[in-house]
């Protein structure tokens, strides 16, 4: 059986509860550990873009798989002790898959730009060839597309905001970094809420497959 439009209003409503628990944009905050332990924080919002649901008939019950395509702009800041701090602005597109118990896995890819701010003073030679202190914050920026894989759990509570906890592994590819490409890894552990306030999200389109 192929993909088709929503075929039952109650199904669509149930699926929407998972894929878009509130009509506001979900917000996540997470620990962002560059190289796991170089501490940082990441803020992101998820714009649900499109959802689809698949029902699989099992012997005793019907298994429901919900999938969501989302867009996620984010900002992350972390510190490599005594060396630099990093600021990453990114925009990912991802696919998240929920099982019946609302455990989810997701995979995303996106583009980003990372600034590295030097720790301490940055000096350079002046026109006379002598050392000259730079008085401004010194940084260099790198185009940094990335990939990420994660998992988590969503709780939908009656008359309360839906909440998820999640963990993710991210890798960013810093281009033109010292005449090469630097691959950086980071671990994220965070919480996401579907608030009943904030940025209003457009209702998503869903499709159901039986």
């Amino acid at each position: 059986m192929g993909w088709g439009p929503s075929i039952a209003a109650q199904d669509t409503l149930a699926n929407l509860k998972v894929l878009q628990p509130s009509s506001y944009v979900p917000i996540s905050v997470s620990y962002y550990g560059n190289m796991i332990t170089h501490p940082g924080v990441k803020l992101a919002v998820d714009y649900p873009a499109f959802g689809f649901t698949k029902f699989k008939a099992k012997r005793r019950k019907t298994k429901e798989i919900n999938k969501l395509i989302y867009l996620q702009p984010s900002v992350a800041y972390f510190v490599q002790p005594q060396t630099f701090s990093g600021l990453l602005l990114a925009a990912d597109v991802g696919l998240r898959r929920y099982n019946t118990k609302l455990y989810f896995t997701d995979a995303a890819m996106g583009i980003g730009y990372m600034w590295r701010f030097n720790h301490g003073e940055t000096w350079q030679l002046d026109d006379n060839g002598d050392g000259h202190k730079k008085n401004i914050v010194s940084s260099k920026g790198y185009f940094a597309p990335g990939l990420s894989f994660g998992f988590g759990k969503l709780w939908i509570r009656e008359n309360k905001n839906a909440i998820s906890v999640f963990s993710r592994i991210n890798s960013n590819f810093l281009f033109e970094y010292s005449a090469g490409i630097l691959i950086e890894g980071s671990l994220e552990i965070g919480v996401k809420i579907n608030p009943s306030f904030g940025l209003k999200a457009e209702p998503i389109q869903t499709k159901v497959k039986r």
Partner: protein
Amino acid sequence: MRTLLLIYLGSALFFSCKKDQDLSSISETIYVRNKSADMPVYMRGNMSSKVIILIVHGGPGGNGLEYRTGRFSEELEAHYAVAYWDQRGNGMSHGKFKKSEMTIDNMVHDMYAVIKVLKAKYGNDVRVFALGHSWGGTLTAKFMISSGYQYLLTGWIEADGAHDIPKLNVDAIKMFRAVAQEQIALGNNVDNWNGILSWANEVDTNNISVEDGGEINQKAHEVEEWLRSDGVITTEESGGHKNSIFFGPTNPFTSWMIGNQTNSALQVTETLAMTNELHLVSIPCLFLWGKYDFVVPPSLGVDAFNEVNSTNKKLVIFDHSGHSPMADEWEKFAYEVVQFVDAVK
């Protein structure tokens, strides 16, 4: 308004209470920006001495703070300030430049910039000594013979420095042959040394390729381990400053990844030979070499000692060391450095 006032007073109190830096034990990071590269210099140790030992690390592909894990660094930091510099394309250096800009000439200019910055920051009266190890010996040798740069330094310390790569390869083969026979006669690791002897006898020393150079380097590290297991080379003592992989200033994966790319980009160094230009060097020099260094044989140290025009020069061969005497015989190594620096500073 009241809250703002409290924040202002709190901040003023905090900053006014900040202690002046203790010059006998500094710990700070400065960056040197040169030719599109931002290179960290980790300053540690005793700045009240007004002497800075600039560590020019090996590789290419190493990093400055690798040298801080050795016990010799504790001794040096007690006497002097030590500048652990991450060269362009190495360690935690970063920047946007082209592969074609990853040249030894740019790295020499980087070293010039680092020294000028150290003098600008800590005063023109600070005396800077360059301590180059292995690849750092290549870089410092090139610096020494480049347009009067040497006079920025008070002294040059070359430890197992690769200032002549073609000669290094030829002499390493000769050394493999000689030491193999010596070790076979002593009954040490006989099968292994027989294998090395057969291999070394087959290498045409008049025609050593880049691939041969890589194999020589790999086997050089291998035989050092045999000599260490037989007690010919001293086993490195534990101690020194610990660099935490997860919480320290150097991310080992970043350093490894970028260092490897830099190492590939600098393959041109296989043809670099500077022995014939070392006569241009006239500042005080100290050459420190491990007797069993197959990576950069001690014959290069002997050549450098003979070639430089310095009136104040010394060569020390460490009898129980391989490529890193600062690790194998750290006490003697530190002693020689301190004696040299104190004599000429």
